[in-house]
């Protein structure tokens, strides 16, 4: 009887509850880093929400039953999820979306181990990508001065082994193979992602140690701002934009004239270490996407502290135009022109005066086709691509008519298979490359396998890569102190394996994400410039082992607090007779960030430990380890005005990245940005 009454009561209660709307709250997070994604759009039927700063969204009235949530965000692959909503309930969920490594219009190459940063986060870390990325995810940005090239080193890579893509177009200098992060501004970036390891099978040349993919801001409001800092550094910038395009201008006066200690005692003023850089970045697109970048730089080549070159200057001009279009059938073409004049009319004793101009032009084109595929519960797509590139240079620093051609064909697939609450992703890729002087194709292959459930993600990857020597390594003109190496061989990662786990943990009121990665591989014929007998510098091939790991912790705490920390180990050693760490490669780098972002304020204390680097091939003459700490405070006033104050190198460590090139030490910066949505 009592049971019957109970059943009757329950039967009556259910229809009643079914009429009560449920409440649904959630957070959108980056699937690889676990960081919240602000500004994402979450769709439920005809309703939509935009996620707040910490990635949260909320629907106050949701019909019970099975619903489908869709989410999309710039720089991420759109995602969707089915949910069972209980009547009258209040549910909390987490939607994970994967960052796009490369965006080729609507075609996405999705890889499983990318980590990413939004443009907003990037801006908080530094005004240029050189400042913002140094220390992030174990990246070391080597530079010799404020005005000089800033080159990313990933897992102890050589200078031309990291491919930097802007909207899918390579940003590496077609002559040197290196990508200068000092000329790219954080405010022009929508999102940036990093994929470590041998990625040549997907991206082709230069992707030997990693790929940094930059998605530039292609739309949005207008902006005007400026920044002043220590040592006379100044920046001003402006941008105009609408929903279809954006054009941004910037002018930077780089730091110069700081005091530094001389070997043997005393101090003197560092001169000729700065310069002026003008840059324009534009992107416009509806069906056809057009990107233009141009820069004009006049900078000092300061020389080392023991042999300063106060009269040495470099003038560089670059112009890039890229066009891409298509959906299933993709086409893209680009043209780049660059000119460099380097001169020193009054070199130090024993050095030779020079005035050398080099100009070059590069043309590239690619065509691709993507098709959906599905079998046995697996769904995904495969993309077929073919690309061609030609570089030609003339001038005083290269042999006459130096030119280089490359052709590549490849296929990359992404497959997904859902099993219960978990998902399998498999992403195989293959590529063949030919280039000038090479008779047989150079193959690259890679496969990523990822298993994901609600809180855990496991990844296993293996791949190979090959890249031709940069034009500057083989076709420069012999000069005093440098000698070409006509026998230079291409760099090749024969095989590299990588495994990782990402785990989300609930620790009381805090959400924690832990990532652990380990990698092991070898590089045959890594190209490194070294002094040889009598200190003639020349590029040479070296067999290198590369192994190590990364560990990272992201902790989202109540009261707008967050903590992140990471440690990176990169054991990069010469194979064979010597097992010494390759010169200028730190074994250890550590990072930490404490952030408090209440309401319109944002306080961030960052720490970057750069381990000991050796300047020789045998582990001697070390550059000391350094703790680089910075403190930044940001205040938003309304929706338009942002003020930021920053102290870089708070502890005045004055770490040296390259021997003989000091950094200025503690520096103060103030910036203001006014946005017009």
């Amino acid at each position: 009887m009592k049971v019957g009454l109970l059943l009757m009561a329950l039967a009556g209660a259910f229809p009643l509850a079914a009429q009560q709307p449920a409440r649904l709250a959630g957070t959108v997070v980056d699937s690889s880093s676990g960081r919240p994604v602000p500004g994402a759009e979450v769709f439920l039927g005809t309703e939509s929400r935009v996620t707040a700063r910490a990635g949260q969204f909320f629907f106050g009235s949701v019909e019970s039953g099975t619903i489908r949530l869709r989410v999309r965000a710039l720089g991420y692959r759109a995602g969707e999820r089915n949910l069972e909503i209980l009547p009258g309930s209040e549910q909390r969920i987490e939607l994970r979306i994967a960052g796009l490594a490369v965006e080729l219009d609507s075609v996405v190459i999705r890889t499983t181990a990318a980590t990413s940063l939004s443009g907003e986060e990037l801006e908080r870390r530094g005004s240029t990508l050189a400042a913002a990325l140094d220390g992030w995810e174990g990246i070391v940005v080597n530079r010799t001065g404020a005005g000089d090239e800033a080159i990313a080193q990933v897992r102890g890579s050589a200078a031309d082994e990291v491919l930097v893509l802007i909207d899918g177009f390579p940003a590496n200098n077609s002559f040197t193979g290196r990508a200068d992060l000092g000329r790219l501004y954080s405010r022009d970036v929508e999102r940036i992602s990093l994929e470590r390891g041998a990625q040549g099978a997907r991206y082709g040349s230069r992707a030997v140690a990693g790929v940094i993919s930059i998605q530039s801001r292609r739309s949005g409001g207008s902006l005007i701002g400026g920044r002043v800092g220590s040592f006379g550094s100044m920046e001003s910038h402006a941008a105009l934009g609408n929903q279809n395009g954006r054009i941004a201008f910037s002018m930077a006066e780089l730091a110069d004239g700081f005091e530094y200690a001389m070997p043997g005692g005393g101090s003197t003023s560092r001169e000729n270490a700065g310069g002026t850089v003008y840059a324009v970045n534009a992107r416009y697109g509806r069906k056809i996407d057009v990107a233009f970048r141009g820069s004009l730089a006049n900078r000092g080549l300061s020389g080392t502290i023991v042999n300063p070159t106060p009269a040495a200057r470099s003038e560089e001009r670059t112009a890039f135009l890229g066009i891409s279009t298509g959906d299933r059938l993709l086409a893209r073409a680009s043209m780049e022109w660059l000119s460099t004049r380097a001169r020193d009319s009054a070199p130090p004793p024993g050095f030779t005066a020079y005035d050398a101009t080099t100009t070059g032009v590069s043309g590239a084109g690619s065509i691709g086709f993507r098709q959906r595929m599905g079998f046995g519960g697996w769904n995904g797509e495969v993309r077929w691509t073919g690309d061609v590139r030609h570089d030609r240079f003339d001038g005083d620093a290269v042999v006459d008519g130096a030119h280089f051609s490359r052709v590549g064909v490849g296929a990359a697939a992404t497959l997904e298979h859902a099993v219960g609450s978990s998902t399998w992703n498999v992403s195989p890729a293959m590529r063949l490359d030919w280039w000038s002087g090479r008779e047989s194709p150079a193959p690259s292959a890679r496969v990523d396998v990822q298993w994901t459930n609600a809180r855990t993600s496991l990844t296993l990857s293996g791949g190979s890569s090959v890249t031709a020597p940069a034009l500057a390594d083989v076709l420069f003109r012999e000069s005093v102190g440098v000698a070409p190496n006509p026998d230079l061989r291409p760099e090749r990662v024969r095989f590299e394996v990588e495994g990782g786990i990402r785990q989300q943990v609930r620790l009381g009121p805090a959400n924690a994400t832990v990532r652990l990665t380990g990698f092991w591989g070898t590089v045959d014929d890594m190209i490194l410039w070294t002094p040889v007998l009598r200190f003639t510098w020349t590029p040479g091939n070296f067999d290198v082992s590369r192994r190590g790991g990364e560990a990272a912790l992201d902790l989202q705490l109540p009261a707008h607090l967050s903590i992140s920390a990471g440690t990176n180990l990169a054991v990069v050693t010469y194979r064979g007779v010597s097992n010494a760490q390759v010169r200028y490669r730190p074994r250890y780098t550590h990072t930490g960030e404490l952030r408090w972002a209440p309401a319109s304020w944002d306080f961030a204390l960052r720490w970057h430990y750069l381990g000991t680097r050796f300047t020789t091939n045998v582990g001697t003459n070390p550059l000391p380890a350094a703790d680089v700490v910075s403190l930044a405070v940001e205040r938003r006033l309304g929706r338009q005005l942002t003020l930021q104050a920053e102290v870089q190198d708070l502890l005045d460590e004055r770490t040296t990245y390259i021997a003989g090139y000091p950094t200025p030490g503690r520096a103060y910066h103030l910036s203001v940005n006014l946005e017009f949505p």
Partner: protein
Amino acid sequence: MSSRHHPWLPLLALAAVACADTTAPLPPAEEVLLVVNSTEASLSVVPVESPNTGITIPLGGTTPTPVVVAARNGIALVPMGLDNSVAVVDLKAGTVLRTIQLTPGSGATGVAIVSDTFAYVANPNLNTVTRVNYRTGDTASVDVGVYPQGIAFTRGKVFVLNGNLVNFVPDGPSWISVVDPVTNQLASGIDSIALPGPGNAGFADVGSDGLLYVISTGDFAGGQGRLSIVDPVGRTEVANFGGIGTGPGALAADGGERLFISSFSEGLMEFNTVTRTLVRGEGDGIDIPGNSAVEVDSKGRIYAIGTGPCQGGQPGTAHVLRANLSEQDTITLGECAIFAAVTNIP
């Protein structure tokens, strides 16, 4: 036997020990081979009687480019090239005692020790040599010829080898400037000795005949190397020989009539100072890959230094040769072993 305790006995014993300390013979001086490992910026110190117990001393610096060494009484001096400095190394302690800064732009290359206090360092980029008090760090420079890159000290005078290089290429024959270390000025009388030949004089050694033997390398092409014999008293070149091929470098006398000449391309060559003939010349050298230097110890062992690949941390090698030039042993050195000296550590 009395068991009585005498209070003065400990004092006596102490006095005996103290006396024993002051009168004990000094430990024997240890003969060592010093080798400059250039791209590694270090100094290998190898006891000639126990080569396996050698040590390597990092030389420090900012952008060091060391290529020579000189030593005396347990102190070694290494000019640091582009660092414009000279490292003073305590061979007994195995450390760099101090680094003495020279004039900016010096390019310090070439060194000779003249006393327990003073040494001369050549500044090829400044056309000067600097008298360095390596005890205090005091320096004083004097003008010499074009691109001084080697120094020898004999008969109370400093002989500076002017390489006469412009943009690292010989601009004509070399010559020697003679400096009086007492006045730190060019010597009175003849202060310049012509060295007819291809230029790029950079290496010298004093033979057992008291004469100075000088190598002019030329431009590393076309077999230009020449050997000059210089009378340091008369301050004139007394003989000049070709036939030593391409790229000859450091040389060493054995205390007798043999003079060994190292060469990157020819290997180890030999000249007889009595008959003044090439025993082994161009095309007939002992095959020592990358032969950058040669030295001879007090027991007549010949050390022919091979640079190694100068890359990737791969070591150089000292080939220990018997008097008949057959190989007796090899010693592993540092990366890019480029110059050697034998000295005694007291």
